[in-house]
């Protein structure tokens, strides 16, 4: 073995050691969560803690399901997340395309206003947004949760960057063929910015799934609630019953984690693409 190969090998063992320690820090909390969700309260407060419950307490999960209308919460969360994602993909790609490829008076000023919105803390908007939803009578409805998040300055900015990176000859050729901008957007441009659309879809879906304060403010009845505030209400009810709380947290997060593991390449490439264009 040459000395160069030796150093490479040593460096790679060192890398694995550091990365493995980091990975443990990332994963052990989840493993401990799963173990705790199957313990009795007594077992969970044992010192020193036992590694495995004597009899797995599946009843902890039953308690989560009897206490929370989990089925409807799951459905509401999924509906809101899909609705916001589809709407953002449509609206942001239309606007992003117009900002990147069409010329119209006031374009730069309007775009600058959109950019400025990126710095506005989302919490500042909550009270006036609540009043708008109230005035159209959509408080305590799923579409009320959905509506404000269907529009996004960030998404418009992100997709504009993708559209701006395409060669100008593309739309010129299509225009000579007599296609109008809507047509060009749909059949020429959209297929070429697929990585951008995937990135926006992943980010919007995740953000929506995890959103806490807005649904908490808009929704009052449990059957219209989404998972994140629902889980928070579980915490105020079972303050120190950690096995039930861990079971609840597990049930609320497993769907997204499952989707992530299946679509991991798309998730990771999407996040990377959003960062590179940002």
């Amino acid at each position, binding site marked *: 073995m040459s000395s160069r190969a030796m150093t490479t090998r040593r460096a790679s063992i060192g890398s694995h050691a550091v990365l493995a320690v980091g990975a443990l820090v990332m994963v052990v909390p989840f493993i401990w969560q799963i173990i705790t969700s199957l313990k009795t309260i007594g077992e969970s*407060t044992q010192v020193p803690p036992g590694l495995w419950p004597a009899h797995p307490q599946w009843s902890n999960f039953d308690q989560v399901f009897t206490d929370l209308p989990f089925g409807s919460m799951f459905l509401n969360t999924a509906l809101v997340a899909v609705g916001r994602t589809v709407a953002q993909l449509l609206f942001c790609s239309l*606007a992003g395309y117009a900002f990147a490829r069409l010329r119209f008076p006031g374009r730069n000023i309007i775009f600058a206003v959109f950019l400025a919105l990126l*710095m506005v803390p989302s919490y500042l908007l909550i009270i006036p947004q609540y009043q708008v939803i109230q005035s159209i009578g959509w408080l305590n409805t799923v579409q009320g949760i959905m509506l404000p998040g269907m529009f996004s300055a960030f998404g418009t900015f992100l997709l504009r960057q993708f559209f701006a990176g395409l060669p100008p000859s593309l739309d010129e050729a299509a225009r000579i063929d007599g296609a109008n901008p809507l047509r060009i957007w749909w059949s020429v441009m959209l297929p070429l910015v697929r990585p951008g659309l995937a990135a926006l879809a992943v980010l919007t879906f995740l953000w929506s799934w995890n959103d806490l304060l807005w649904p908490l403010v808009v929704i009052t009845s449990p059957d219209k609630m989404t998972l994140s505030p629902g889980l928070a209400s579980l915490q105020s009810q079972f303050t120190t019953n950690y096995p039930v709380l861990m079971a609840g*947290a597990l049930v609320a997060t497993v769907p997204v984690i499952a989707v992530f593991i299946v679509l991991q390449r798309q998730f990771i490439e999407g996040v990377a693409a959003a*960062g590179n264009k940002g």
Partner: protein
Amino acid sequence: MSTETNPTGGTKRRRRLGIRGREALWGYGLIAPTALGLGVFYVWPVIQTLYVSFNSWGPFGGLKWLGLDNYRELFKDEAVGRSLLNSALYTLMVLIGIPVALVLANLLNRRLLRGKSFYRVLYFLPVVTMPTAVAMIWRWLLNGDFGLVNYLLGKVGIHGANWLSDPNTALIAIAAVGIWASLGYNIILFVAGLQSVPDQLYEAAELDGAGPVTVFFKVTLPLVSPTVFFVAVITVINALQVFDLIYLMMSTSANPALPATRSIVYLFYQRAFMENDRSYGAAIAFLLMIIIVICTAVQFRLQKRWVHYE
């Protein structure tokens, strides 16, 4: 008049608009849904919040003009000062996550490393977990009496604190969880940035006899500095707005550590929603916005000193 009843009029009008005019109309049409939505749900709320912050909020929602009184009150309010300090400390602590992410990303980017995608998935897991669940899990791990963290610390002879109810440790513990939750996201961004560094540069540096540490500081760091800058700006903007984690990890407003962890957004939530003083809440929210704009502007100014664009 429609083109169908009067075709000549229609074509005349078209000609008058010209190619440019039609392009502009399309432009306005395509941005219309977003402009309308952002106008109603983002621009108008900013204007309204600014207006409300100059008024007092009556018990039945009536507004009374106060001028700058709310803002004067802000500067006298000790809770505001303390919350700003907490948010600033939290932001500074979370920034430590950036070099950690960069080092891990650099290790992950080795060409011959096996199991890359396995590591990436593990590091990314916390990013796809909802903050409500993250807070719940860590409240349990950091529990002073029965938590896994203190048990493991006890194994190496350290007596762990009551992390989340001790005012001296609570903010540090929450910031550590904040780093844990966002590390994977930053690593992915850095790996993407590192991949754009051409291999020849590394090879050339190696031929010159540079060690891995020198290569990192002289080659890697300058070339990924735009990504570092982007991550830093995003981290600061998000950290200054921290709310979910603190709200959930403190769990009750009776937690003795709350004054030492209450962020500016938490204070806004308390004043505006729990105490129902919307106008004072609006003034706090505006103060935060000004701070975020200033921090972002300062970062953009400083970037010229250390960010290298090709």
